[in-house]
C-alpha cells in the first residue's frame, strides 16, 4: 500500500516536471528539430519557395565539392564547382586567423593589467567594457566613417602622427577590407576581457604565495600559475570565437550593404549563405551551405575539445595522470 503511494507521488512529481518544461519541448520540436530535418531535406532539393521542392539528390553537395582535384592540378579556381563558396570559406578563415589571436592577446593582456591594484581601476574596466554592449549597426556605421580614407580619422592619424605615407583604403581596398573588419572587432575586446578578468580573480592567492616562497619572480608566477589556471577560459573563448566567425554577419552586411565587396573580399560564409537564401531564393543550395556550416562548427568544436587535453589545465586534475 505504502509503495504504491510513493510510486504515485514520484509519478506525480515527474508529471509536474514534464509539464513545466512543455514550452521548451514544443519549441524544440517546432523551432529546432523540425526545421533541422526540413533543412537537411531541402539540402537535397532545388527549391525556390514558389514551386515545390524538387529532389536533386547530391547535386547541391556536388556543386560545392566538385572540381577540387582539377583545381589542385591546374590552380585555376574556375575548375571548382562553386568558386565563390571557397572564396567565402577563405575569407572567413582569414578573418578568424587574424581576429582570434589578436583578440586573445589584447583581451588577455588587458585583463592582466586590469587585475592590478592601480588607481581608478573600476573606471578603466568600465571604459574598456563599454564598446562590447553597443555592438551592431550603429557601431558599424561609425567605424565605416572612421576608416573612410577621405573623411575618416584613422588615416589622418596614421599620416600625420605615425608618418605613414600611403595609408590603406581599408574597406574600399580588397587587400585591407578584412584587416579593417578585424580592427573594428578589436574595439569590442572588452567582452572577452571581462571573462578573463573573472578567471584571473578566481585563481586562489595561495598559489601565488606558494610560488613566491619558492622564489618565483613575477614572470615565472605568470607563466607557471596564471597561464595554466586560465587555459580553460582561453579555450572556451577560442571555441566560441571560431563559431562566432562562421556566423559573422551584421558588421559585414552593414559595412558593404550586403555585397561582401570590394571584389568579394569580405564575402563571409554567413553572408554568402544569406545571399543564396534571401537574394537568389535558392533555398536548396542555402540549406546545403547551412548544413556544411553546421558540420564545420561541429568538427571545430570536437577538434578543439580533443586537443584541449594537451594544453588545457583543469584545477583538480593531475596532468601526468590520464
Amino acid at each position: 500500500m505504502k509503495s504504491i503511494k510513493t510510486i504515485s507521488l514520484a509519478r506525480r512529481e515527474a508529471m509536474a516536471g514534464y509539464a513545466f518544461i512543455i514550452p521548451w519541448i514544443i519549441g524544440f520540436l517546432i523551432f529546432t528539430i523540425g526545421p533541422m530535418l526540413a533543412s537537411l531535406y531541402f539540402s537535397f532539393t532545388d527549391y525556390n519557395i514558389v514551386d515545390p521542392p524538387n529532389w536533386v539528390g547530391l547535386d547541391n553537395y556536388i556543386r560545392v565539392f566538385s572540381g577540387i582535384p582539377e583545381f589542385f592540378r591546374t590552380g585555376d579556381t574556375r575548375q571548382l564547382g562553386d568558386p565563390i563558396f571557397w572564396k567565402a570559406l577563405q575569407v572567413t578563415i582569414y578573418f578568424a586567423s587574424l581576429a582570434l589571436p589578436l583578440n586573445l592577446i589584447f583581451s588577455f593582456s588587458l585583463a592582466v593589467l586590469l587585475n592590478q591594484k592601480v588607481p581608478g581601476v573600476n573606471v578603466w574596466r568600465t571604459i574598456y567594457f563599454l564598446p562590447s554592449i553597443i555592438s551592431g549597426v550603429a557601431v558599424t556605421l561609425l567605424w565605416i566613417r572612421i576608416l573612410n580614407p577621405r573623411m575618416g580619422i584613422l588615416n589622418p592619424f596614421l599620416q600625420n602622427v605615425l608618418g605613414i605615407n600611403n595609408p590603406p583604403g581599408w574597406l574600399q581596398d580588397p587587400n585591407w577590407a578584412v584587416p579593417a573588419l578585424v580592427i573594428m572587432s578589436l574595439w569590442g575586446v572588452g567582452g572577452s576581457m571581462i571573462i578573463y578578468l573573472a578567471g584571473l580573480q578566481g585563481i586562489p592567492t595561495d598559489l601565488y604565495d606558494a610560488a613566491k616562497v619558492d622564489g618565483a619572480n613575477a614572470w615565472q608566477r605568470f607563466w607557471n600559475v596564471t597561464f595554466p589556471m586560465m587555459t580553460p577560459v582561453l579555450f572556451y573563448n577560442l571555441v566560441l570565437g571560431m563559431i562566432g566567425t562562421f556566423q559573422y554577419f551584421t558588421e559585414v552586411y552593414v559595412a558593404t550593404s550586403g555585397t561582401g565587396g570590394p571584389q568579394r573580399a569580405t564575402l563571409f560564409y554567413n553572408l554568402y549563405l544569406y545571399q543564396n537564401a534571401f537574394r537568389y531564393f535558392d533555398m536548396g543550395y542555402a540549406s546545403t551551405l547551412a548544413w556544411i556550416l553546421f558540420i564545420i562548427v561541429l568538427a571545430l568544436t570536437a577538434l578543439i575539445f580533443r586537443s584541449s587535453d594537451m594544453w588545457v589545465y583543469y584545477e583538480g586534475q593531475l596532468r601526468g595522470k590520464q
Partner: protein
Amino acid sequence: MKRIADFFGSITGSIKASEFLFKGITTLLLAAGAVVIMIPLAFMVSTSLKDPGQLRSDANTLIPRKPQTAEINGEKFNLYQVTVDGASLEMAMIKKAPGGMAFFADPARPDELIELKLNEQIALYSFDIHWENYPEALNAMPFFRYLGNTLIVTFVGMFGMLFSSSLVAYGFSRFRAPWLNVLFLLLLSTIMLPSQVRLIPIYIFYQKLGWVNTLLPLIVPQFFANAYDVFLLRQFFMTIPLELDDAAKIDGANPLQVLLYIILPQARPALVSVGIFHFLYAWNDFYEPLIFLHTRENWTLAVGLQTFDALYTINTHLIMAVSVLMIFPPILLFFFSQKIFTQGVVFSGVKG
C-alpha cells in the same frame, strides 16, 4: 649590524620603487588605451553635432567647428591669426594667390593688403554645435515608428522569454523525473547549434502562416524558452534552499504556487540579469529583423538605420545622430546595472 639593516632597507626600498614604477606604467598604458577606446565614441557624438558643411571641408576633426569670419563690404572672409614682422594679428584672408600665398587684410582697413604664406598662418575657428541635427534626423526617417517596433519586439519578447524560461528552468531544477537530465543536456547542446541550420525552414514556415513581414517571427519564439536563459535561471534556482519549497508545500501550495510565491521572488536578481541581456540582444539584433521584415513600416531601429545609411550615406551627421540615440539606452542601462551586468557576463561566459 647597521650595514645589514641598510642593505635590507635598500632592497625593500627598491622593491617599493619598482612596484611604484610598475603601477605607474600600468596606469599610463590603461589610460592611453582608454583614450583610444573612447575616441570613436567621441567622433560619433561630435559628428552628430556637425554642420554638413564641415563634413565636406574638414570632416576628420574631432570638434564641431566653423571658420571664424569677418564681414567686409557685405562679404564674408575667413579669419586667420597671422604673423607680420614678428607681431601676431587677426586678419581676414581676402584671396588666395599663386605659390601658396594669400592676401590678408585687417577687417578695419580692408584696402591694405599683405601677401603672406598661407600655410604659416593659423585659421581661426569657433565652436559650431548643431543640436538641430537631432530633430532633423528624427524627421528624416520614421524614427518613432522604428522605435515603437523595436520596443514591441524587445519588451513583448522579454516578457515571453522570462515567462517561458522561468517555467522551464523551474521544471529542470526542482523535479525528479526519468530522462529529465537527458533532456537538459539536449537543451544545452542547442546553444552550440548555428541558427542558420534552422533558419530557412522556419522562414518558409512563417511565410506559409503569413507571418513574414510582421513582428511575430521576432516575438513568438521567445515564448518557447531558450537554452541560454533557461540554463542561467536554472543555475540560480538551484541555489534557492529547498526548505522554502517544503514549507510552502506543507502549507498546501501546489508546484505553480511554489514557483510564483517562493522561487520567482527569490530569483529577482537572476531574472533582472537575463532580462537585461535579452534587452541588449533584441535592441541590437539585425540579422533576424533583416530577414523577416521587408517593408519600412515594420522595421526595427537596426534595420531602419542601416537602410537609411544605404540610401543617404552622405547625411553622415544625421546617421550619427540616430546612432547616438540608438546606443544611448544600452549605455544608460549599463551604468544603472553595472554590477548585475558584469556578473551576468562572467557567469554566462565562464560557465555557459
